[in-house]
């Protein structure tokens, strides 16, 4: 790094602008002050660089974390893994409170082929990125699915189908009732 003391006032002025330091004219009395300021700013190293790199790394970090977590999740794929063939299940999952589970399980259809490698999984990461936000709470409760999985006798998707049928049936019942009765029924 070139010695700051040897730079011309114009160069120092340019450097100050680069680091976003407001300054006045670089004259005899102010030069040493600005040189010190520049050294401080360089030591910090942050100001001069655009922040776009940071956001890029943050995104990567999310993905990396996500990828890293899946090896532990794969252990718990269990019966849920064998069924989540498609997005349909993920869409259905929005009806219930088990959104996190469905997206959690939908994130691992590729995982079935775990033997092969993480490649299919990696490819799907961008498309399942939207489910990351759901997957995040999963970080704090990796144990819950494990515990619940063992207690599920009926597969998850079957429960959803059943629930939907029940909802449709109730809707039909209500729609066939007369208006007054329907309101009374609600109250």
């Amino acid at each position, binding site marked *: 790094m070139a010695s700051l003391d040897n730079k011309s006032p114009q160069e120092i002025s340019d450097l100050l602008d680069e680091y976003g330091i407001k300054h*006045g004219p670089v*004259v005899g009395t102010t030069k040493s002050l600005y040189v010190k300021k520049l050294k401080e700013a360089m030591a910090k190293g942050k100001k001069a660089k655009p922040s776009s790199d940071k956001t890029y790394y943050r995104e990567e970090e999310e993905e990396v974390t996500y990828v890293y977590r899946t090896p532990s999740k794969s252990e718990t794929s269990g019966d849920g893994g064998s069924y989540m063939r498609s997005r349909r299940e993920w869409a259905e999952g929005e009806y219930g409170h088990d959104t996190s589970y469905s997206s959690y399980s939908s994130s691992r259809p590729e995982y079935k082929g775990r033997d092969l490698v993480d490649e299919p999984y990696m490819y799907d990461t961008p498309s399942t990125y939207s489910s990351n936000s759901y997957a995040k709470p999963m970080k704090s409760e990796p144990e819950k699915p494990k515990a619940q999985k063992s207690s599920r006798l009926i597969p998850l998707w079957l429960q959803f189908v059943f629930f939907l049928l029940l909802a449709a049936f109730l809707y039909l019942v209500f729609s066939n009732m007369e208006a007054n009765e329907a309101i009374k029924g609600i109250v």
Partner: protein
Amino acid sequence: MSTTSQKHRNFVSEPMADKPVTALAGIGDRLGHSLTEQGYDKAYVVLGQFLLLRKDTELFCYWLKDVTAANSKQADDCAQCLKDWCDAFL
């Protein structure tokens, strides 16, 4: 926000003319002597430096602490004094 000292109020109340540097708030005998040695014998010379730094109090404090043994409070007082004077007379 902070209360000003009597020295501050005295300085800001009128044009500084040829007042010595010790008339500035925050500048006592010791600092005044240090500044005079470096050529800042009058208040207006220090004012000149303040103006060169674009009336930025933070930069001025930085500079003052650099050229003298001023502490944060003294530098803040001096910078604020000059700033108020500028607001009134400049």
